């Protein structure tokens, strides 16, 4: 059975939603981050406050860069296309081999 979620997680979720939807609250937070977090009705853990402050200090582009590592999707198509090209190259080799054996057969017939 799943464990009960921590009160801190619920408070953090509520806090982040408030930041996203309440312009006055967000402005007040931008002016005094620590003060606003300390005045919350639902208290946040010190670790959570530190994480929010650290996150908020990032510039927008820095925050986009932290997600670079996870961006993907293009790869599958390219990798699949490369695999297909490799596969397509194989039968050509086999054909050459068959051709060689046919030549050998003709040579055998001629000898007979």
């Amino acid at each position, binding site marked *: 059975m*799943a464990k009960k979620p921590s009160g801190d*997680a*619920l408070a*953090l*979720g509520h806090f982040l939603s408030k930041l996203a939807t309440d312009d006055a609250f*967000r402005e007040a937070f931008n002016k005094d981050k620590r003060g606003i977090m300390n005045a919350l009705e639902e208290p946040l853990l010190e670790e959570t406050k530190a994480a929010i402050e650290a996150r908020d200090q990032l510039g927008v582009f820095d925050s986009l860069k932290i997600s670079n590592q996870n*961006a993907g*999707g*293009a790869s599958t198509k*390219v990798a699949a296309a490369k695999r297909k090209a490799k596969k397509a190259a194989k039968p050509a080799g086999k054909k050459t081999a068959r051709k060689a054996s046919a030549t050998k057969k003709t040579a055998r017939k001629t000898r007979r």
Partner: protein
Amino acid sequence: MSRAATGGRPPKRGSLLVVGTGITGAGQTTLDAVTAIQDADYLFYCVVEPTTELWLRGLNPAATTLSDLYEEGKARTKTYADMTARIVTAVRSGLRVCVAFYGHPGVLVESTHKAIRLLRREGYAARMLPGVSAEGCLFADLGLNPGDDGLQGFEATDFLLSRRKFDPTSGLILWQIGALGETVSRPGITSRPDRLETLTRALRRHYPPRHRVVLYYAATFPTDRPVVQHCTLAALPRATVLPMAMLYVPPIAQRPLDPRILRWFD
């Protein structure tokens, strides 16, 4: 879970629910997704925001990241296969598993679709709940209504590789133009100008060089603002583009309405 999700057979004991945490995290996660996260025996997550990670770990202490499977120089296809294997193994062990991906868990995420297909074939209940994608954020931030002129969307590499046909009189969205043609993970990745040049050449066959396009980055934290950069198509190859960017190409002049169809509608 219903029998429909397992092809009519009674589901086996383990199960999978795949959810999205939106782009900004907590605030864009639906109530259904939060419930699924809390109720799961085991939670896997792949998110980009440290605060979202903190929040998820608080909601479900049995939470493990999938991000450790990304390695520098490792082929992404291998990373996705490893993710699928990790998810499937947990479900097979009889656990109710929840997997949370940032954004919409079915948009540009391969491992979730594969895990669901595989588990359903094996008789496990497995399904996906929708989430807020970057495209959804773009509609809101650019004031774009896809009902006006229509909208086409392609993954940028696929767009070039498959020579996708499209209609320039409708809007065009290209996903991940910053990761154009990239097959491996590496830090500090940005688009290569030569690849952007090739993409621009393909677009120039349909749009004038001075056509204005938009590079869009959805905000990833509630105090961030979205990044909206306008430039001409001709200037696009000189832009520095991060992988999270989407390119929006507005439509050119509209097609004339078909008078016969118009009469028919009357």
